[in-house]
């Protein structure tokens, strides 16, 4: 749903745009961080004048912490009375995430499927404005086309930026994105018809590429669940796994959580925070019985959930192909290989 009016902003003027946006929103961008000799990009608050770097691939962390804060207060209670003497957390200011890659933006839409009735998540989707940034180059761990996305995808974004010939084409994707663009109309030139044609041609070429891949979701859906579950591949995949859970924490579409009570001096809160199906306690009953007590069962559950259970229910993988789990896995487990073996 591309609105007719798009802007064209020169690459070196991007800071002007950020400074203007920073007046009305709390803007976050990926910032370069350095720890000893290790450099990486991480989401951080934009201050006027900060460098906005364009780099290949995605920041180290996904944007899910903006949607599921770690931890998130569900409600507060007073311990002298009862759990329902509660106060829901206050609303936060409107935030803007600037420079979100299409894979990360798409994760918002995928997570919304199971979270469709979760008021906390839905509120966050209303609070966070997403400014997407198309990928001109891909990292070797990227596989968004296989996961159903595109390097120029706009799903989940409000505004999409694409760098073509040293200028950003700024398109409105949603209505609220369009309203923001309207306010910028007198400050930046409008993109020409030929710019838009170029953009559309590029996007169409990716679409064609994706369609050349036989739909893996369809192929998986046609497979028998228990046959996939009983494949010997799970023993092979899990052999090297150390159940560290980094894949689940970095994954933009791993959305499982735990709920706990925290109390201090008679006041308490019920909080939820990220949990991981890689951990044995995740499924352990109070009796000690554990339905997924063995490592290979947990590894299998993670991949089966993303690549079989989820698509069976929602017709799409619970994976956007960002490649974080591939890049950061300490024992080099590669979800692309697992998918290939499942197919």
């Amino acid at each position, binding site marked *: 749903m591309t609105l007719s009016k798009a802007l064209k902003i020169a690459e070196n003027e991007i800071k002007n745009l950020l400074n203007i946006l920073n007046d009305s929103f709390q803007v976050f961008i990926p910032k370069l961080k350095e720890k000893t000799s290790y450099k990486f990009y991480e989401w951080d608050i934009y201050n006027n004048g900060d460098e906005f770097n364009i780099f290949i691939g995605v920041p180290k962390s996904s944007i899910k912490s903006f949607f599921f804060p770690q931890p998130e207060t569900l409600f507060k209670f007073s311990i002298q009375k*009862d759990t329902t003497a509660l106060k829901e957390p206050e609303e936060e200011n409107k935030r803007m995430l600037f420079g979100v890659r299409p894979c990360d933006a798409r994760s918002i839409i995928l997570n919304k499927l199971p979270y469709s009735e979760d008021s906390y998540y839905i509120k966050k989707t209303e609070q966070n404005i997403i400014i997407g940034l198309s990928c001109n180059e891909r990292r070797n761990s990227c596989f968004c086309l296989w996961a159903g996305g595109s390097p120029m995808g706009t799903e989940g974004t409000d505004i999409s930026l694409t760098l073509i010939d040293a200028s950003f084409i700024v398109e409105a994707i949603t209505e609220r994105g369009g309203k923001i663009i309207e306010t910028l109309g007198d400050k930046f030139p409008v993109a020409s018809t030929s710019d838009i044609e170029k953009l559309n041609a590029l996007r169409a070429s990716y679409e064609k590429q994706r369609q050349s891949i036989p739909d893996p979701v369809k192929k998986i859906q046609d497979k028998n*669940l228990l046959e996939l579950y009983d494949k010997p591949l799970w023993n092979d995949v899990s052999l090297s796994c150390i159940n560290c859970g980094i894949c689940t924490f970095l994954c933009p579409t791993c959305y*499982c*959580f735990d*709920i706990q009570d925290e109390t201090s001096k008679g006041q308490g809160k*019920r909080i939820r925070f990220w949990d991981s199906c890689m951990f044995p306690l995740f*499924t352990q009953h109070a009796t000690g019985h554990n339905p997924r007590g063995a490592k290979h069962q947990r590894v299998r559950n993670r991949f089966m959930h993303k690549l079989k259970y989820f698509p069976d229910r929602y017709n799409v993988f619970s994976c956007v192909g960002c490649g974080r789990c591939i890049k950061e896995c300490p024992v080099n487990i590669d979800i692309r290989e697992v998918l290939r073996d499942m197919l």
Partner: protein
Amino acid sequence: MKNLYLSHSATIKDIIIETEDGNIKTFILELDDPEIRDNWKHIPGQFAMMSIAGMGEIPIGIASSPTEKDILSFTVSKIGVVTTELHNMKTGDKIGIRGPIGNGYPLKNQLKGKNILIIGGGYGFTTLRATIIYLIENRKDYNEINVIYGARNPGLLLYKKELEEWSKRNDINCHITVDREVPGWTGLVGFVPQILEKVSPESENSFALICGPPAMIKFSMPVLEKLTWHDNQILFSMENRMKCAAGVCGHCNIGPFYVCKDGPVITREKLKQLPTEY
């Protein structure tokens, strides 16, 4: 938009010690908000999330029948953090209740007009108690009713008073058994599957509702198979660790099946198509 995670305050009205060892108690509650109390509607087989502020939240099957007016009861075994705290609570104490949750037994649909076979073991009898009370209240809607319930010894049987009452009725056949002979016990002796074999309930036009320890279920299945029961006539009630109870948090899944949202009641036919992660 409704908040899925808020619980309602409830007051403990009465506590009944069910078993000789004192490890299982029934808590009779009243929801504090009259509006919520009036709007509370559940089906036997459903559960609720019970919470104690500062301790946490757990899923517990509802032991009362919706036909018992203004009563909401839960039979709880002392086993983990929350249940231990609950067992230390007194009449008048407050807890949180969120529910009712999940799919109960299809008493208003498929089960109507059918012969009902209830098989329970140990403390897996709580939602079956709710079911039996409901069946008795709506007796004309169902055909023959058989109840087979067993425990290791008489001291571990739940709802003893009601078991006695039901045994006296002539509109339901109650078969209460204990594993081994005990002085003073005049009832049936033997494991549930053995009693099931003796009772030999007919499969035609029937449904079985089963809840109990895995061994009881395992050895009851060949008996039902021999009696030509089909897998879609056999209903189980599942349990797994749970957090959100809304099909989101990912804890209770048996493959693609969320016990909280898609269950807890499931046919044997459906269960056979799922991984054995329970």
